[in-house]
């Protein structure tokens, strides 16, 4: 029984599931790096978040009396993967579960499901977690192969103990296994009046390490290289367009360049901003979430620039060390307005007509 529809009667073959799977594939390099750095802990977090998100979607749809087929279209799994990659490794399992339920329940289903959420679901969950549990969400584990961590995360039982029972149950204690993130360290140094180059030197910071990913941070944001590989794959596949990542990153780097030129002692250089925190993860994967970002190219540029300005401002002057996720969610609020005013000039419209519209 075929549905009677008008033309066209051929299709490119693209589908939502194919798009979601492509993004999941693009995140694989970052996932592999996270397992390399955080061992079994990364595996547990990722698996928990994906399953929790899919289950939440299933129950939410059932409760609303809707068909549960959308659980399998890959969007819930993708949100779970995103959420896991933005969490610090030592986040307790119940916090990750709570975050997953918030991401799908409050970040997506409450607005009507896929396609209706104004905010990026994974980021809105992360913000809920950060504001509710600020300590655990800014506690960074010492990764494997870097420094001396007092815990072997490749050991399944050790990793399970940390994951299931929390850091309090470990004999080593929390301090032995945690360290500050680069951004966190800079923010603390700023408040103590220590200059930028001195602080970086004290941290033993290396740009190369930051690029490859040999640093601490949340599960997926450490390796710029892995994320760029994924981002370029998405650009080549035409799943995302260049407008948001390029405008987002360029704005942050331009602002950082201007500021650090004026006062290199107080403002970190642009390359540091590029490789620190979740900028590349947000610019290529979070800000480009199609549902919560603008549709039109002009709008996407405006969105990216706005995100960039907010990210740099929050990082430099704000109360939190990392501002990328806040900036994306803040710009998400403005997306309907951006969409309305940044419509492309249609075929045949004169410049005068454009001004009138």
């Amino acid at each position, binding site marked *: 029984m*075929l*549905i*009677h*529809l*008008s*033309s*066209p*009667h*051929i*299709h*490119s*073959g*693209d*589908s*939502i599931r*194919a*798009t979601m799977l492509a993004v999941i594939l693009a995140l694989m390099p970052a996932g592999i790096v996270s397992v390399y750095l955080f061992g079994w802990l990364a595996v547990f977090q990722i698996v928990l978040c994906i399953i929790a998100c899919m289950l939440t979607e299933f129950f939410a749809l059932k409760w609303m009396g809707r068909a549960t087929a*959308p659980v399998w*279209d890959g969007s819930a799994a993708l949100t779970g993967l995103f959420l896991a990659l933005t969490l610090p490794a030592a986040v307790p399992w119940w916090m990750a579960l709570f975050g997953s339920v918030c991401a799908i329940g409050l970040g997506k289903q409450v607005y*009507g*499901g*896929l*396609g*209706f959420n104004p905010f990026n679901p994974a980021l809105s969950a992360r913000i809920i977690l950060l504001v509710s549990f600020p300590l655990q969400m800014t506690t960074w584990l010492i990764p494997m192969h870097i420094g001396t961590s007092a815990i072997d995360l490749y050991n399944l039982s050790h990793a399970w103990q940390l994951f299931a029972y929390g850091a309090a149950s470990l004999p080593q204690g929390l301090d032995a296994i945690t360290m500050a993130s680069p951004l966190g360290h800079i923010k603390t140094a700023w408040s103590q009046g220590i200059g930028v180059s001195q602080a970086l030197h004290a941290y033993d910071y290396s740009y190369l390490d930051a690029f490859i990913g040999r640093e601490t941070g949340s599960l997926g944001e450490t390796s710029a290289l892995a994320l760029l590989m994924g981002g370029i794959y998405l650009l080549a596949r*035409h*799943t995302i*367009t260049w407008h948001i990542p390029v405008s987002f990153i360029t704005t942050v780097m331009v602002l950082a360049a201007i500021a650090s030129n004026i006062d290199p002692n107080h403002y970190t250089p642009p390359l540091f901003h590029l490789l620190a925190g979740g900028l590349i993860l947000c610019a290529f994967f979070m800000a480009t979430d*199609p*549902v919560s*970002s*603008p*549709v*039109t*190219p002009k709008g*996407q540029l405006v969105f990216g620039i706005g995100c960039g300005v907010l990210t740099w401002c929050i990082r430099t002057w704000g109360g939190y060390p990392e501002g990328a996720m806040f900036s994306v969610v803040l710009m998400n609020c403005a997306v309907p307005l951006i*969409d309305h005013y940044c*419509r*492309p*000039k*249609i*075929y*045949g*419209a*004169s410049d005068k*007509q454009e001004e009138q*519209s």
Partner: protein
Amino acid sequence: MLKSLWHKLGFPQAPFEGGITPDMSKWSAGVAIQDCPLPPLLIVPIKQHIGQACTPLVHVGDKVLRGQKIAKSEGYLSVPIHAPTSGKVIKIEEHPIPHPSGMGLASIFIEPDGKDESDTSLQPLEHWQSLDTAELRERIRLCGIAGLGGAAFPTFIKLLQDRRNPIDTVILNGIECEPFLTNDHRLMLEHSHEVLLGMQIIMHIVGAKKGIVAIEDNKPDAIAAMQHGLGTLNHKSNIQIQALPTRYPQGSEKQLIESLTGKQIPTGKLPMHIGLLCQNIGTTHAIHHAIMLGQPLTERVVTVSGDAVPEVANLRVRIGTPMRYVFSQCGLENFSHTQILHGGPMMGERLRHPDIPVIKSTTGLLAIRDETIKPVHQAEDPCIRCGHCSEACPIQLVPNLLMDYCKQDQLEKAADYNLFDCIECGACSYVCPSHIPLVHYFRYGKGQAAQVRREQSFAEASRLRSDARTARLQREKEEKAAKRRKVRETHKPVKSDKPPITAENKE
């Protein structure tokens, strides 16, 4: 602005904004045009063009010759219809036509007598260069020629000379960007001389100095054939052959003009307002036959293709041939689990059954298997605002936002988002990962807007009639009151000696 700079630097083949590159499936490109034999019955609808329907001139039982006028045009926007072969009119009644509604129109049923004798009342006009252009235009109208690219707009109106909008370039649309269709391709390959001569006639009629034949670069043999054809023309004209990159919808008039000249047709205007005229290859070929051979439009080349057709072909089919008969010439008899498309797959319409006649606007007949179409027409998922539709749109609309407004009947908002600039090319629906039938929603929105306009104008007329009636009744009441007053004034009481007769003193 950047586009015109691009052209000034000498790059004429800049493609237009947007567009898609589907699999072209030109399976019938190598198949020469063959004549489709006469079917046992021809069904000729009385409206095959944009404009008013024609009125039948013949009656049941009349004998007709091929090319004889059997329906005359009504009103200005109309062209007559001619008998496709010699035979007898056996009935005139309603019959389904190629229309998505499945509705029918009055049609003239002709039974061929097999002799295929032609009406020779129209003389060839071989010396057309010395003739008045009005006479040439009248000949084109008389021969029933309408746009054969699918739109079927009466051609003679397009060829009118307007002093305020002179034409300086005639563009021959040899693009044929729809997948599967190859009728224009074969016409250019096999009849390049006639097509180019037809182009010269058109240029003479509108007074254009220049002509461009635009051909997509996936037809190198046609480009070569037309280039060679230029050399066979008796007198030289300023005609050049231009190859353009293969991209859908390059063949759309607006996009073709943008790629060739870098200019855009202003909203609401026509190509003639910027001095251009576009014409289809098939129409031009028909114009050649009308002028040089005195033959009215009685047949056209139709591509028969699709994965359910055993032998794809390009057939010269008489107008009125049932599609079932045309398909059977290509080996397709069983239509179970098969979908029939009238036209190309991007803008053609699905027909419910093959017992519908070929008409002037039938560019192609496609038979596609159910399994091929099923994944295309699926349930829709919610829009994920990916923006692919906006990138693909050749008019630079924002289809997903427009679709929301059409769906919710917010027609003013939809008009503000340029719903009426949509050319319904289908590029947006093609790329949508959620399988949303965007063009269907736009057609719904346009239909609703037209209906609202009709209802509003009817309501306005009813209000005027109601007010007129109220005024009339008021007027009648006042006239009656005035008359009564007049009677009372003129007929004053008369003085009498006798007392008035009352019930008491009645005798």
